[in-house]
């Protein structure tokens, strides 16, 4: 079994309690950070570790922190993005429910690095269990002087607030999150300015994913070189992979970056349900372009390899689809999700995504028209890189890749005027 970082102590009973966490090296990274390092040194260490954002975009975390202006005269904020909402992704929830102090420790160190005294965890509203656990953990952290004034008697001060999300996918987009945190509709902001200079309440703001922040204490404790020992040259560390779909052992697996997808599915996920044939895999959450069974044979799970294969690591939500999956039906379902979640402020996303959803559903229902596929691809082109936030491109990711890679299946639907796939009736998909 590979060495784990984030899930190492996941099965230790009561690890969510601060005393147990402390017994397992908990808050030692924080102590080291505060006692031995200046904030800038922390940034340098994290830069050197090669840690990249685990929320989807993979932006280098240390570099992001270094963008925070030192002399803006405004308070700096740190927001932990815990609005995990990408379909197929369920790793942050596990980290928060099982090991909340690891996240809190990461937050405190990061806040120290960017000179922030008020941090927020913006947590998805549906995560009631994680909220309960975090509330308790935050309270304990205050009691044990790991939060609040003069942390570990090192003079650093940080307040941490848990903020329940207001229930929409787009609140997970970083500027949508900021709007929501300010009490407004989660509508992404126009960039520039970027949050690092003008973010929450117009102050410089760092926004990091739960998994990203949870890595920080370990990097400080054990050093960047140790961290770089995991994964590939440009995708360092381990990654939490969320396996779901037609797979025998769905769940969250922590493995080094660069693990072959095939190995992930077969060795860890226990292979396809019922020994059926693999048809396709969405590798990084629902918005990342789908891979065919042939591509799955070759691709490795890191930022560069997936990009080379025309997809993305994204949030590493691996959705496995076997031969009983109708790709048109699956696409209709995915576009329906995006059509429902578009915030509606910018035109191409608001109108285009709903239009695509209607067409996809119509094709699945056997009412496809000649030219529908060209129309879908042209709508994608009219959305691609033209929306206010990345959601437009998230929504077209599946459309373009499904049609390009499974075109004959779409054409069969249109030609035959019905869905020709023999689906697994035990799986219910809302139409």
């Amino acid at each position: 079994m590979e060495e784990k970082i984030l899930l190492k102590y996941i099965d230790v009973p009561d690890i969510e309690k601060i005393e147990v966490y402390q017994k397992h090296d908990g808050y030692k990274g924080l102590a080291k950070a505060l006692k031995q390092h200046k904030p800038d040194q922390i940034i340098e260490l994290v830069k050197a570790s090669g840690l990249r954002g685990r929320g989807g975009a993979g932006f280098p975390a240390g570099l992001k922190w270094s963008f925070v202006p030192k002399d803006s005269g405004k308070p700096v904020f740190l927001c932990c993005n815990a609005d995990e909402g990408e379909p197929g992704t369920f790793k942050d929830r596990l980290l928060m429910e099982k090991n909340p102090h690891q996240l809190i420790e990461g937050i405190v160190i990061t806040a120290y690095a960017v000179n922030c005294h008020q941090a927020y965890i913006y947590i998805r509203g549906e995560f009631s269990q994680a909220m309960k656990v975090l509330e308790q953990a935050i309270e304990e952290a205050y009691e044990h002087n790991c939060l609040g004034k003069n942390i570990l008697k090192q003079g650093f001060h940080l307040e941490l607030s848990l903020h329940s999300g207001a229930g929409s996918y787009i609140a997970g987009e970083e500027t949508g999150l900021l709007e929501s945190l300010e009490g407004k509709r989660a509508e992404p902001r126009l960039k520039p300015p970027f949050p690092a200079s003008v973010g929450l309440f117009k102050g410089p703001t760092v926004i990091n994913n739960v998994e990203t922040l949870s890595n920080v204490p370990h990097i400080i404790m054990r050093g960047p070189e140790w961290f770089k020992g995991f994964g590939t040259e440009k995708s360092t560390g381990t990654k939490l992979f969320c396996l779901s779909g037609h797979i025998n052992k769905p769940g969250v697996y922590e493995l080094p970056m660069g693990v072959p997808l095939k190995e992930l599915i077969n060795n860890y996920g226990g292979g396809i349900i019922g020994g059926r044939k693999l048809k396709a895999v969405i590798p990084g959450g629902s918005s990342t372009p789908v891979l065919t069974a042939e591509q799955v044979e070759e691709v490795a799970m890191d930022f560069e390899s997936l990009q080379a294969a025309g997809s993305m690591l994204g949030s590493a939500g691996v959705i496995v689809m076997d031969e009983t999956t109708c790709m048109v039906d699956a696409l209709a379902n995915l576009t329906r999700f995006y059509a429902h979640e578009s915030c509606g402020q910018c035109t191409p996303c608001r109108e285009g995504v709903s239009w695509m959803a209607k067409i996809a559903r119509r094709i699945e229902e056997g009412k496809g028209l000649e030219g529908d596929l060209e129309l879908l691809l042209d709508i994608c082109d009219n959305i691609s890189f033209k929306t206010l936030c990345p959601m437009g491109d998230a929504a077209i990711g599946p459309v373009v890749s499904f049609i390009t890679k499974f075109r004959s299946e779409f054409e069969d639907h249109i030609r035959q005027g019905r869905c020709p796939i023999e689906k697994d009736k035990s799986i219910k998909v809302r139409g």
Partner: protein
Amino acid sequence: MAKIKIDGKELQVPDGITILEAATIAGIEIPHFCYHKELSIRGSCRMCLVEVEKMPKLVPACSTTIKDEMNIFTSSERVIKNRRGVLEFFLINHPLDCPICDQAGECTLQDYVYKYGSAVSRFTEEKEHFERRKELGPHVLHYSERCVLCGRCIRFCEEISETRELARFNRSVRSEVDVFPGKRLDNKLSGNVVDLCPVGAMVSKEFLFKSRVWWLTHTESICPLCSRGCNIEIDSRDNKILRVRPRPNPEVNSQWMCDDGRFGWDFVHREDRLTSPLKREGAEMVSISWTQAINLVKGRLSYIISNFGKEAVAAIASPYLTNEDNYLLRVLLLSVIRSPSMAVYQAAQVEEPMVFPSGFTIEADKSPNLAGAQDVSAVEGREPISHRQLLQKVASGEVRALYFLGGAPRISLPVDEREILKKVDFLVVHDYAPSELTEWAELVLPNLSFAEREGTFTNFQGRVQRIRPALLPPGEAKPDWEILQEICQAMGGEVNYPSAEKVFEGIAGAVPGYKGLSYSELGNQGKAKG
């Protein structure tokens, strides 16, 4: 300054401006919906995306700042494709009800589709449907299905009126603009959202289905309902005002006007407008000819002057009438009759000024020309007297004849003033309709409303602005200056102005501060007096 290139055209532009502003300088139109120069930038309609050399994505022209050496393309293939795409997106769920839409003819969506859009629809799905028409407030109706969700109306209520009644509700294609639960769009600036709306989503209840806009005649004028003097356009048809909208004037009203002014012109079309001179005979008012009226004034004034002296004649100028009108009153009283008793009527202020956080203000003084009336009636070296002081002279019997210019859209005199008016031997009143002034007049001369005449108002800042006739006068009613000029002439005065414009030249020659001003100098934005 930055050196940039737009569509091959090289030009120098100030640093820090946006591509959209630079294009405007270069005379290039970049179509847009959500951008409005008085509101914050949202960048959400995606209509204004342009191509910039070395930038991989198209960028919003409204929010992208110019950089030196920037090379911008506003009509490259990619830009044109995006515009067509965005317009198609707007239209797929749009009801295409232009034949019955108030905005048709002045609709940005219509114009852009005509210019940049496609003639064929690729949309075969069912359109989204919404409640057809919602009442948001006393003046504004909303058609959600026509809305392009540019958010200008919402930002106006957040940033200009700061009343925050509006928001976008629901998500995705179910998004719609509405008032917050329990709220109404009833702030005093609500009508501006109708002007801001680029399509027919926000419409005016008053104007709804009144006319196709291309049948309207547009007349530039000034709002007569407070001393701010918002620049307006009167839209009329068949000698009726159908709509009043603000004209931009950064010195006075930015782009806005208040609902009091926008919807408060109905007095112009009162059923009881006066159409001929009226003479009191017992309890009755009898219609007489202008010749009879002028002779009556001349006879009665001459009698009073010869029996009680010229000081027994007094006049009250009107802040509701133009400088030209009040100037002729001054000529009559001070130059022809040579009586010193002239004052300007000033209504007691009953309201506080309404100042919006954005700076826009509805003034407490509900007359458009108090400053101007005071300017033209002032006599150098003589302390002006108030109309109440002057009325005391009437009460004491010192004044026997009173020439009173009315013209207020609404007037309510204090009881003591009304009692005094009852006692005047000879009261002549100019007004456009029966009022508390005409009630006790021996002679009522019918004048014109602001919408039927030429002239100037001087606003509270001392800005002199022109009004222009949008309508024909009712019956035999005349502008006050013309009536007064005829009386001057009847009484031996040597005045002969052929037009209001010439009267203004007379003012420019005689009244301090107005020197050098002329109608052409005032243009359509007015000029501050000296």
